[in-house]
């Protein structure tokens, strides 16, 4: 895939990520020589339009969280480009400036707050660091906005709050710098269902109010479907499918996406899956399979899948649905390719 031909929308993207790559070396032996490489994120590209919410799904270990950390530079990328609002990280945009425009909410609401700092100070910290005016006032306004009375909660410590309240604090903290993009890394996964729903609604409201763009990472497909405009599916550090939420829900194209969706418990007892979902663990990212990384578990795998690495391409001319699978490429040489591909 060339850099100009990206899974894009009609609008100019607010954030565009190109060929993001992160390989973690595994060192061993007495001299700490590099023994192997974990290909945590390998050539991930996507674009997000302003005001859009991109959901990222995939099994644990597929590189979702590493991608999130690469986006705000918490982990240093090995290769790739991050372009925010037309400015490239590095030449045009400093890391500090990027970190003001992209903020993150973490999964563990307790670990992500300094236990020795009051809630109000935690929320105000970022604004203070970035030199924004009136950090304390900002903190108070945002706490009130996320539903925590600043006079009651401002002086409290994290352990005095419930999980849902703490996650509201984390959201307020992320918003304190007026970011454009908020990365939500499993932000609601640790909350119980009723609190999760409240926080999701709060996130949806904040998105409207502040014109935010979300990158929403979760393993919970229902939650991702509820909040996202588009869904990106990752497998072993690679993007296998990107599509608007309705498209991917109606017609999941990649065999991995299909098995992921079929593993979802259905609310309707007559509609329960009887076919077994994917078996086994994902292969080791230290030594990923040749060709298509999914071929070892794919029910549709053919000879070509072991040899040739599929590239992300549109399902049809002008379609917003992108997939990296030989089945949808008539020229790939996969025996079932033509009949599978929609017109």
């Amino acid at each position, binding site marked *: 895939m060339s850099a100009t031909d990206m899974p894009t929308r009609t609008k100019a993207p607010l954030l565009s990520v190109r060929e993001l790559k992160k390989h973690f070396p595994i060192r061993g032996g007495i001299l700490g020589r590099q023994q192997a490489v974990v290909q945590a994120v390998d050539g991930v590209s996507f674009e997000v339009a302003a005001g859009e919410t991109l959901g990222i799904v995939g099994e644990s270990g597929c590189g979702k969280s590493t991608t999130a950390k690469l986006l705000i530079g*918490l982990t240093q990328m090995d290769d790739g480009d991050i372009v925010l609002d037309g400015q490239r990280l590095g030449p045009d945009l400093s890391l*500090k400036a990027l*970190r003001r425009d992209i903020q*993150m909410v973490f999964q563990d609401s307790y670990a*992500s707050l300094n236990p020795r700092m009051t809630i109000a100070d935690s929320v105000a910290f*970022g604004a203070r660091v970035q030199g924004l005016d009136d950090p304390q006032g900002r903190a108070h306004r945002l706490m009130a906005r996320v539903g925590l009375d600043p006079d009651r909660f401002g002086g409290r410590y994290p352990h005095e709050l419930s999980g849902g309240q703490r996650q509201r604090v984390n959201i307020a903290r992320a918003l304190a710098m007026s970011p454009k993009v908020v990365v939500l890394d499993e932000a609601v996964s640790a909350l119980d269902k009723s609190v999760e729903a409240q926080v999701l609604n709060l996130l949806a409201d904040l998105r409207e109010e502040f014109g935010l763009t979300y990158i929403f990472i979760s393993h919970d497909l229902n939650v991702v479907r509820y909040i996202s405009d588009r869904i990106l599916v990752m497998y072993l550090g690679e993007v296998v499918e990107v599509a608007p939420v309705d498209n991917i829900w109606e017609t999941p194209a990649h065999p991995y996406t299909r098995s992921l969706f079929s593993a979802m418990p259905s609310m309707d007892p007559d509609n329960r899956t009887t076919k077994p979902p994917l078996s086994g663990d994902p292969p080791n990212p230290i030594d990923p399979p040749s060709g298509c990384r999914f071929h070892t578990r794919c029910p549709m795998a053919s000879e070509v899948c072991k040899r040739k690495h599929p590239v992300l391409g549109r399902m049809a001319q002008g379609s917003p649905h992108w997939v990296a699978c030989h089945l949808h490429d008539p020229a790939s040489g996969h025996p079932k390719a033509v009949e599978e591909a929609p017109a």
Partner: protein
Amino acid sequence: MAQVEAELHPQAEAAPKPQGYWSGVIRRLAGDKVAMACLIVIALLILSAVFAPWLGLADPYRGSMIARLKPIGTEGHILGTDEQGRDMLARLIYGGRLTLFIGLMPVVFAFFIGSALGIAAGYVGGMTNTIIMRVVDVFFAFPSVLLAIAISGALGAGITNSLVSLTIVFIPPVTRVAEAVTSGVRSLDYIDAARASGAGALTVIRVHVIGNVLSPIFVYATSLTSVCMILAAGLSFLGIGVRPPEPEWGLMLNTLRAAIYVDPWLAALPGVMIFATSLCLNLLSDGLRSAMNVRD
């Protein structure tokens, strides 16, 4: 109206006022009888050492050939006299000045230097960590007593050299604890969140790391004070610490050991002081450790 409010939000009224961490520590420590007793003993020792010249004691340096080795309870010399006829009470109290100074200051120095090294190693990680921690590991190859004697012996006798050698002895263990605690804190999300807000390493360390790592390091350092006291006295006992005629408990133990057959009680007095002080420091450190343990 206010009443209605209170009824509607009973939680709001009952909510405890946010309390500082240290006020809680002091409150818990005050409830610990053993720790408080030890604190009083140590406070008395320090106060008497500091104010020794104003306590109306005999001159700790002036001996008398005719009043040598008077037993405990002698008139004019409540705790007797030493082998040169100097007043034991005065020498023990004046001795506390040097002994406590050499016994505590190396830990204070090591606390600051070791914390700085350990926090740097733990926060930065990678190569910096490897270099600092491997150098520290080298010092662990030697037993602390041996190391103190070796360094002191090489530098020569004297108070400054004792301080230097003991500080070197205590930097590695403090560094190791500081590094372990910092690496633990470093991996928590709130450090990532702070970095993600654009704060530089020094700001993150100052605001988010130090407050969360200093108390365990501090508690560990207090547990080293008793060992340091004993080592300092040991150096003087061996003649590579404080030089005569300065009063110092370890040195006094050494000079009085010839008198152990004549008056064992008298000869044991400096040892009793060392024992009591290090025991109190140890118990106080234990009390502090449990008082600082906030959770459960």
